[in-house]
């Protein structure tokens, strides 16, 4: 598949998404969300396509894409870990889990590993406080997390960590 071809395909996809929202400029945020879901991040070409099809200046699109926490302008990892650090999870020990994941993955929250295997984020509250601390692993909620449970998760995803299983 040639480069030109893939850009064209991307543009068609973006066009579809925009049409779903009736080309309403008020829906820039949800549109970008859908675009990100499609491509796993916001590629420059896709942002250009959003700009031209919605007739909104690229600077404005870029402003929105960099303001909101949900958007990423760089590709995200194959595995995505989001740790809830809402108040309830925080007082139940999320900070220890955060530094543990940071240490094992060698990743600061918000970053993606250079080999594109892992992205690690913290989120402010998932509203499932009864399960806290919560780690979302590739979209699946894992509740009542502890440092050792986190290590088991990371081991399953191919990281070398000590767990009480060995």
């Amino acid at each position, binding site marked *: 598949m040639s480069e030109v071809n893939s850009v064209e395909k991307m543009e068609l996809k973006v066009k579809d998404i925009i049409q779903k929202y009736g080309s309403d*400029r*008020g*829906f*820039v*945020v*949800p549109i*970008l*969300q859908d675009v990100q879901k499609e491509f796993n991040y916001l590629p420059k070409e896709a942002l250009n396509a959003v700009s031209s099809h919605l007739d*909104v200046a690229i600077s*404005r699109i870029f*402003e*929105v894409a960099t*303001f*909101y*926490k*949900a*958007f990423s302008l760089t590709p995200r990892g194959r595995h995505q870990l989001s740790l809830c*650090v*809402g*108040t*309830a999870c*925080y*007082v*139940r*020990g999320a900070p*220890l889990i955060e*530094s*543990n994941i940071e*240490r094992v993955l060698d990743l600061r929250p918000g970053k993606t590993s250079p080999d594109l295997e892992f992205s690690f984020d913290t*989120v*402010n*509250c*998932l*509203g*499932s*406080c*009864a*399960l*806290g601390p*919560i780690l979302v692993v590739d979209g699946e*909620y894992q*509740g009542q997390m*502890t*440092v*050792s449970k986190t290590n088991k998760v990371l081991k399953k995803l191919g990281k070398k*960590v*000590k*767990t*009480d299983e060995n």
Partner: protein
Amino acid sequence: MKIKSFKELKSLREKISNSRDPEKNCITICAGTGCLAYGAQSLVNKFKAEIEKDNLEEEIDIRSTGCHGFCEQGPVVVIYPEKVFYRRVGLDDAAEVIHKTVLNGEILDRLLYTDPSSGEKIIHEDDVPFYKKQMRLVFGMNGQIDPKSLEDYLAIGGYSALAKVLNGMEPGAVIEEVKKANLRGRGGGGFSAGWKWESTRKAKGDPKYVICNADEGDPGAYMDRSLLEGNPHSILEGMMIGAYAIGSNEGYIYVRNEYPLAVKNVTIAIEKGRELGVLGEDILDSGFSFDIKVNRGGGAFVCGESSALFASLEGRTGEPRAKYIHATDRGLNNKPTNLNNVETWANVPLIINKGAEWYQSIGTENSKGTKIFSLVGKINNTGLVEIPMGMTLREIIEDIGGGTPKGGKFKAVQTGGPSGGCIPEQFLDMPIDFDALTKVGSMMGSGGMIVMDDRTCMVDVARYFLKFLEGESCGKCVPCREGVRRMREILDDICEGRGREGDVEILESISHALIDGSLCALGATAPNPVLSTIKYFREEYSAHIQEKKCPAGVCKELIRYKIDEENCNGCGVCARLCPAECISGEKKQPHVIDQEKCIKCGSCRESCKFDAVIVE
């Protein structure tokens, strides 16, 4: 099928009610986000499969409902008509529940809830202490309906308030009723909803907008999510009534993208409402038209602030503006806009149906009705609780919440999210309402109630909120952008052992600059967590600054992990797990931690079954 008149709506409701036998067995399974995370969806499927397998469809109904509130005990199952309450129900229990309990009336002991204070097993939902003291006017319907079913909503009287309003109530009379009920905004500010509606109605401009604020950003609060997920039609109905009173035909629901199930359920509800004809053009032949669009946020806390929310809805970055002109005059697209929170809207149909006088009879002098709180943190019964205004904190925390988990001692309760404060034990007997909470330096906020015990460091909590706000400050105004950061830096210093004499005074002085100088409430209320912890827990600040100690054992730089020789039996689990390999000792002999190498990850303390790892 589209209904075109009040009569048709009424006869449809009667038809649905008549077709339902209240005595028929019905298994309701909570499928809110909390229970889903415990595997409720596969449980629903399992029950369905079992019923199908034994051809019991005639005898047993099954319903997956919204959040019941008692998230701690999920997955939660309630069996009607007796309202038998089962918790932590697993896939293997399904067949037995059907054959023994539903068909034979036999109670399965192992699935019952045990009251931790009396040790007594409880059979019926209404007798569970967690529910007993609640007054679940707004939230109680969640457990009775499938949020995806408009029929279910109609069966419990849904859209009757809308019909009442459209069929003979003047818009002015609707506003009067809401004003008389003294409904105050549940999103945090506590502003009178009726006054807001009236101002928007009187404002010049066309179109006028009605918006539901579901950008529930306060960490630790999730009642709006559960309402949208569990009973979306009640919010739509509230918005429709508001729109009619205000004279608006266009509505928006602005919801956090972190709440996918809420987005899904409310979108389905809107579609079904349009199909039935309670939403759209010329609703029930009344001449009133109204439609709602759902817009999702982008993960910015500040977008819960009205003017930032409008900016986001206009497709821009969510930056607030100064509010010398009210949103009721110029809000979204510079048109008159009425913004209310999810829970506020959900109260509206109740007020219309039961009347302002009834509503007035609940609550305190200036705060009427109920409020839903999310009771979370260091508490036994985590969940959503709806109580009449005026209940004391102690009743909520001890009677409903069951107190703090074993081993911990209650220290404070934090309300109002990052804009609120920490309330110490001495105020536990205070009846809570909007004004009482403000008086002690906190606020109602959207209703998060985070319980903290003696293992929670109050200085660290203050730092946590400032770190949160630093990340969420939009950066438009200087006091908030710079002030919050400087305060966080000072708190970092204090927590990391670099605190200096005078730091607390500097924190106080910056706080006042923020309160006076910030553009929006995010900055103006940002100092609350700091000021309230300084006020009530000053000795903890002093311990950090002067003694370089963290009494709660939280701040990494100020603590050491140590193994208690008496309790350590040398099992070696901690040494095996320690990532820094800094624990050593002979088999069956007390171990020691090499303080030089320890990275304070907490693995040892967590893994020790004998509580031999202590923090000092």
